[in-house]
């Protein structure tokens, strides 16, 4: 093995150059990533290894930084949703809806109850797909491929529902200011019903495969644990924080889009380890299913799917051709001549990984003056080096999976 060449100011230099173990073995540097299949995204970690154990880690991020905050400053408000999709691409509708809700808060738009419930349904579907991917990938990383392939087909079913609602699957760009771009088709509700019938059976089977599985328990219990105090100091939110025993959930703390109308539990863990994170996400999927059912039951009659805000909501195309007023509104919206107040807004929602927030500063022009995304992944990924210190290399992979770090959200 060739000798490692490190610059003298590198923080591992002294360990590599000076420190040898008593038995004569040396420390080694391992470059995990940036494009390693086990990391499910573009993450680089330079690990200082003593045999199979990790002594220190140095993460490098920014490999898919696309400068969304800069681009957002040059785009009209309604063209920013496609940017938000590409952050947490496992649960894009939550990001989309969070952005529309931010603008609606800015403009004081009251969204009809039915549209709010539809939003709740689509956001909970997104949460299910997000947790489904995270947990099944954790299975893959601990050696159980079957569960992943089994539940992955249900992500397809959810994507078919998205497709029916907005025409897109992964990067959905769903919704408009004030609601949805069109009413949900009967087929969307049919697909949703089928999903609600079939998915719980599969998810129960998935749980049965894992939760009491000896190998899975050995691989995950007491691996990558974090205490509640540390998790809070590191800015954890969402399932990763709740696994450490803190019941903070934005849907409860600051209900948006009528979440206060639904009964649901906030599952919490105890030790904040990989197994607890897995269990919290599993339990949240059941809660999400219950919320969707409640929303369907309580769905108000009628077919309202957007607020009556002609200044901001594009009129139907046939009206644009046949109606003078609609043509004027269409022109004003497309040309960005709609009035926007000078204000500063922070709007948080419970994203797939935690508190997703949009901090929007406007100066009255057609684009944001400043838009900052509070990306949960970016904030809690800082704790990763500390969580993997002393762990085995294979555990580091499992911990990364269970944190559900999404590269797109990490780098924005």
């Amino acid at each position: 093995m060739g000798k490692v060449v490190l610059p003298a100011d590198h923080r591992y230099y002294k360990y590599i150059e000076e420190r040898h173990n008593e038995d004569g073995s040396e420390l080694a540097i391992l470059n995990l990533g940036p494009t390693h299949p086990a990391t499910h995204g573009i993450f680089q970690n330079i690990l200082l290894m003593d045999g199979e154990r990790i002594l220190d880690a140095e993460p490098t991020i920014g490999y898919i930084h696309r400068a969304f905050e800069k681009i957002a400053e040059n785009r009209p408000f309604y063209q920013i949703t496609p940017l938000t999709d590409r952050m947490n691409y496992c649960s894009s509708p939550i990001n989309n809806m969070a952005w529309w809700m931010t603008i609606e808060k800015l403009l004081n738009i009251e969204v009809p109850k039915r549209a709010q419930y539809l939003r709740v349904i689509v956001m909970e579907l997104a949460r299910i797909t997000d947790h489904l991917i995270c947990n099944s990938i954790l299975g893959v990383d601990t050696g159980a491929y079957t569960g992943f392939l089994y539940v992955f087909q249900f992500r397809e079913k959810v994507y078919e529902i998205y497709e029916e609602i907005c025409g897109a699957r992964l990067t959905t760009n769903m919704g408009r200011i004030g609601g949805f771009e069109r009413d949900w088709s009967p087929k969307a509700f049919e697909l949703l019903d089928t999903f609600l019938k079939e998915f719980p059976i599969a998810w129960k089977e998935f749980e049965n495969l894992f939760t009491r599985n000896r190998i899975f328990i050995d691989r995950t219990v007491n691996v990558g644990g974090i205490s509640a105090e540390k998790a809070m100091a590191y800015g954890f939110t969402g399932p990763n924080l709740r696994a450490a025993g803190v019941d903070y959930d934005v849907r409860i703390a600051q209900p948006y889009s009528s979440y206060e109308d639904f009964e649901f539990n906030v599952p919490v863990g105890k030790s904040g380890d990989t197994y607890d994170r897995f269990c919290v996400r599993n339990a949240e999927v059941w809660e999400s299913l219950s919320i969707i059912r409640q929303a369907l039951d309580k769905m108000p009659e009628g077919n309202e799917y957007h607020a009556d805000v002609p200044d901001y909501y594009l009129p139907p195309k046939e009206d644009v051709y046949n109606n003078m007023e609609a043509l004027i509104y269409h022109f004003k919206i497309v040309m960005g001549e709609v009035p926007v107040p000078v204000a500063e807004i922070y709007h948080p929602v419970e994203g797939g990984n935690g508190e997703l927030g949009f901090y929007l500063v406007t100066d009255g022009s057609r684009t944001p003056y400043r838009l900052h995304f509070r990306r949960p992944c970016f904030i809690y990924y800082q704790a990763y080096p500390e969580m993997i210190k002393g762990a085995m290399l294979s555990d580091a992979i499992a911990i990364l999976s269970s944190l559900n770090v999404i590269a797109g959200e990490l780098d924005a």
Partner: protein
Amino acid sequence: MALESLDIQNKLQETFGDNVKYFRTEYDMFVFEVDSDVIYNVIKFLKEEPSLNFNFLTDLCGIHYPDSQENEKFCVVYHLHNWFENKRIRVKTFLNGTNPEVKSITSLYNCADWMERETFDFYGIQFEGHPNLVRILNMDEMVSFPMRKEYPMEDSGRTDKDDRFFGRTVNNTTI
């Protein structure tokens, strides 16, 4: 008993006097501004004073105001959250344009580490006392600070995205 905005204002004014100012409520958020030389002490006070107890740093970011006067060219915005009373506040501090520098709060909140690095990376704001203030999202060799307003995003000759060509100027609305 819920934590009222007025209580926060009174406590801060008692301790810091005129260094803390412009208290107001914007939409659902209580906002105030702090002089940059006491921002660390104010945030420490907000976190450690038992009756305030802002235990969570939600967000930290910078803003560039190239048209403001010299000592208000940059702004660092802190969003703090008291989870026990469920109270959110926004704290703003303005920095000068030539040498924007503010004391780091990494010793109070671990999560401020990368947020301050990101702010440094985007705006070149120096966080004094930060353990490892290097670029985080952009490459290390970069010399400019891309979120500053003078940094062009694309071809500067392009006029199709200029507000003036859409019959409006900045701040021309009334609401």
